[in-house]
């Protein structure tokens, strides 16, 4: 069912002068966002989780009760209590402080991987979709990359890149998820280039470069944003798996996967070491999955079949 946006009189009259128009624009944007957020209760919940995570990223070090790396042998393996809300690990480090500090690193890596997949995947997908010959060859390679299960390819790439480290993790997992971005952009480009407005632009003698930049790329925005959200969700899960296996970020940096790996030895004695980072990871992934679903349904319900 088509939904028409109701235009109020004040929307049209209020925008006087540059500042007024600007304010009206911001107000409209906020209203659209509020509409989007409250349409489904699951979206509101997901945005709530994301908001909390962002607050943790912003002020985490200020509110975290202890230094995430501070050792305190006397306090080791304490169950959650008033002094240590999430308990402590085998070195007496505060799990809450480490989990909060892991939030920063996780979101930073997830964001970097999504941006990486967009920077590489968008141009590649557009060119493959617009130029048949390039597409024929490159897409074969892209499909072959997708024949390797994600974690196996990521493990192999970590070996090729050499030392464990944040940059290498971003590159390895980024390379694993970029082919999926290319696929989405490619199939969207294929359908856009058949539309009448592209035909019209061609008939007017617009150059290919201009068509790609001004007409095709703009229309790819919604599938790319949606795919980037899903990439974020999948990649933080995969990064956690790499850290859990001990081949991701070096163990001296507090990461959720790494914490779960260290806690394995004490699983039955101190399950909170694993419980809390895992819970944070699951909630983050859940929030990005839900937001991705919501943006997809909002921007373009047709994408449901593609993604």
């Amino acid at each position, binding site marked *: 069912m088509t939904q028409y946006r109701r235009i109020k009189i004040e929307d049209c009259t209020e925008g006087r002068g540059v500042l007024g128009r600007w304010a009206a624009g911001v107000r409209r944007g906020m209203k659209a966002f509020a509409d989007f957020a409250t349409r489904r209760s*699951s979206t509101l919940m997901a945005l709530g989780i994301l908001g909390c995570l962002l607050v943790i990223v912003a002020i985490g070090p200020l509110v975290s009760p202890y230094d995430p790396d501070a050792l305190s042998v006397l306090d080791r393996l304490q169950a959650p209590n008033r002094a240590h809300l999430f308990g402590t690990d085998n070195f007496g480090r505060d799990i809450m402080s480490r989990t909060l500090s892991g939030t920063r690193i996780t979101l930073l890596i997830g964001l970097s991987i999504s941006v990486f997949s967009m920077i590489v995947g968008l141009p590649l997908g557009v060119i493959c979709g617009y130029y048949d010959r390039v597409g024929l060859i490159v897409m*074969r*390679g892209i*499909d*072959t*990359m997708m*024949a*390797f*299960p*994600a*974690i*196996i*390819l990521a*493990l*192999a*790439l*970590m*070996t*090729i890149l*050499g030392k464990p480290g944040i940059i290498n993790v971003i590159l390895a997992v980024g390379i694993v998820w970029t082919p999926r971005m290319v696929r989405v952009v490619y199939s969207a480009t294929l359908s856009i280039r058949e539309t009448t407005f592209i035909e019209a632009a061609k008939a007017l003698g617009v150059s290919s470069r201009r068509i790609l930049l001004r007409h095709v790329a703009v229309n790819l925005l919604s599938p790319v944003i949606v795919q980037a959200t899903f990439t974020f*969700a999948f990649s933080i*899960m995969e990064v*956690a*798996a790499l850290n*859990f*296996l*001990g*081949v991701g970020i070096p163990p001296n940096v507090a990461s959720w996967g790494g914490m*779960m790996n260290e806690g*394995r030895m004490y*699983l*039955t004695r101190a*399950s909170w070491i*694993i*419980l809390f980072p*895992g819970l944070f*990871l*699951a*909630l983050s*992934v*859940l929030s990005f*999955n*839900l937001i991705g679903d919501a943006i997809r349904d909002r921007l373009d319900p047709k994408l449901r079949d593609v993604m």
Partner: protein
Amino acid sequence: MFSFLMRRVAGMLVSVVLVISVTFLLMQLIPGDPASVLLGSNATPEQIEELKATWGLDQSMFTQFVKYIGNFVRGDLGRSLFYQEPVLQMLGARAETSILLGLGSLLVVVAIGIPGGILAALRPSGWVDNLFLVIALAGASIPSFWLGLMLMNVFAGKLGWLPSSGFTSILDTGNLGNLRSLILPAFSLGFVNAALVARTARSSMLDVMQADYITTARAKGLRERVVTVKHALRNASIPIITVVSFTFAALVSGAVVTENVFALPGIGSLIVQSVLKRDYPVIQGIMMVVAVLYVFVNFATDLTYAFVDPRIRYR
């Protein structure tokens, strides 16, 4: 049917060659050469050159590639740098665990996913439907290794009902009771994917239940069970088969971590150890075998489509 089969086989062979080529190229990107890695820093340049010549590493990349494909066809995947064993033999020794884990989790996926989806479709928005919606959301977000550890803590640690880790071969000991060790891993791996299959089965069934032939079948006075299973399920099965075949890749990925969690001697734990030890031939061998297997699964899926829906053969 014959031309359909030929086209699929040709497509599959192309994919296999591409997969092998990509693996080969990726392994060429590794900095440093395996000969000096194996011999260590005390080796003389002559020794390194000699080892390179024995392995054929001094030849051109193209010659190496041709030789490499030849070896692959003959089943020679090279030797482990660390254990000095043929890679194929190492994979063979660990195949049992991985195959049993894979089949076990596939069983969990199918046994929970398909009946769950059908039940959910029979009463949309009923409690089964809502339950599976929540499980599907949770399943897509919960890391399987975390679920595995939590299950291990409860069922192996606190309750002591099931073994917490390890697996002894059934082929060697003949003891079927060893399968108990695989219950928790198979469940933690399968559960996450079962919900996805259930959601697909549900929406596919809901589509089909609207069709006229379902009304006709009911009008003929057929029992509801016959209508659901015989008329609806068969027509709804294409998307279900697709999503089950997709779970293959997810199960392999998950198995790498799950085998590690439960200390299972499978191929997944082998690749992690090989990455930590930088045992390139083993990594390469596993990548290739898994990717070729994936191509085969896709091929088998295509054939199943043709079997379930005869119209596909003529496209």
